[in-house]
């Protein structure tokens, strides 16, 4: 495992992703859903909304670092949380 050069931060990140996938899988089995059409103009499931949130979050961070130089990364965290909440609510 040493060659993988783990850090606590990245381990926590992947653990969170894995947890999200497990929760999504369990929800899909025990609480099946119907896709709904929201502001994205096409039917989305929970999984779609999670995916859009995660990809969008990555781009929010990239744009933030690109535009401001990225010395303070708490602002994009707030933006990303708001964005993800909006995606889950309205997409």
């Amino acid at each position, binding site marked *: 495992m040493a060659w993988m*050069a783990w*850090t606590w931060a990245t381990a926590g990140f*992947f653990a969170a992703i894995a947890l999200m996938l497990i929760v999504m899988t369990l929800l899909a089995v025990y609480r099946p859903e*119907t896709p709904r059409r929201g502001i994205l103009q096409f039917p989305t499931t929970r999984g779609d909304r999670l995916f859009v949130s995660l990809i969008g979050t990555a781009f929010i961070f990239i744009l933030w*670092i690109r535009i401001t130089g*990225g010395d303070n990364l708490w602002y994009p965290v707030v933006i990303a949380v708001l964005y993800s909440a909006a995606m889950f609510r309205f997409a």
Partner: protein
Amino acid sequence: MLDKPWNNRAWFFVIPVLVFVLFSSIIPMMTVVNYSVQDTMGQNNFFWNGAAWFQNLLDPTTDIGGRFAAALVRNLIFSLVVLCIELPLGIAVAICIPRHGWRVGAALVLIALPLLIPWTVVGTIWQIFARQDIGLLGAALNSVGIHYNDTQDPTSAWATIVVMDVWHWTGMVALLAYAGLKAIPDAFYQAARIDGASRWSVFRNIELPKLQKVLVIAVLLRFMESFMIYTEPSVVTGGGPGEATSFLSLDLVKIALGQVDLGNAAAMSLVYNLITLSLCWIFFTVMTQLEQRKGS
């Protein structure tokens, strides 16, 4: 269709594939993520570097940031050029392929031939083909007075790479378009004939709309492959002259394996991967939505 809950249990059958993907992609990918936030002096000693590699990469005034931005633009231009040539050309070829008789098989085999050649071999063929001393293309162009040198002149290098890609992949677009054309029932053509439609309006109003689905697939496949192109330019030009044909994956390999600059390479490959992933997703969503709208 929208009011019936989806039963997703069949996805459990995908688990064996996931295990395989875990070892072939996910674990290496996790390692790349780990490298992207750390620096190393070798000997497997890593120390935390925060977002510094990403700050470096996304700032075009730094060396690595400038290279990345230039390679990204270069790669997008290449994909666009290749799509603009291969799509119309592929459709035109597909329309010219005979629809009946023994010539169908002959034409399809000939068109599919370049697709069957391994990428390194395609690169080698074109590398020799383009040489000024012994290559048919290079020697012929220079002997009629056209200055052509793919190892020193960026325009020649670009032309070689683009023409090579067109030669290699137009066949695939043509085969997809041909399959789409074959699926159009004869009744449409008969109706057009009764109405006295011109060849152009048959193409514009019957063939092109019916080809939409296969063309979206063709765009998706061609865009992704050209955006990730590595082998052919690496063999033919090696990214040169200078940096003229250094596309993203070529530059990435130079940084990761040539300079063993793990942090920069990791940050670059993550951003590159993210761009590819989101473009893939957009294409896929558009494709499935088009299909569903047609179905409903």
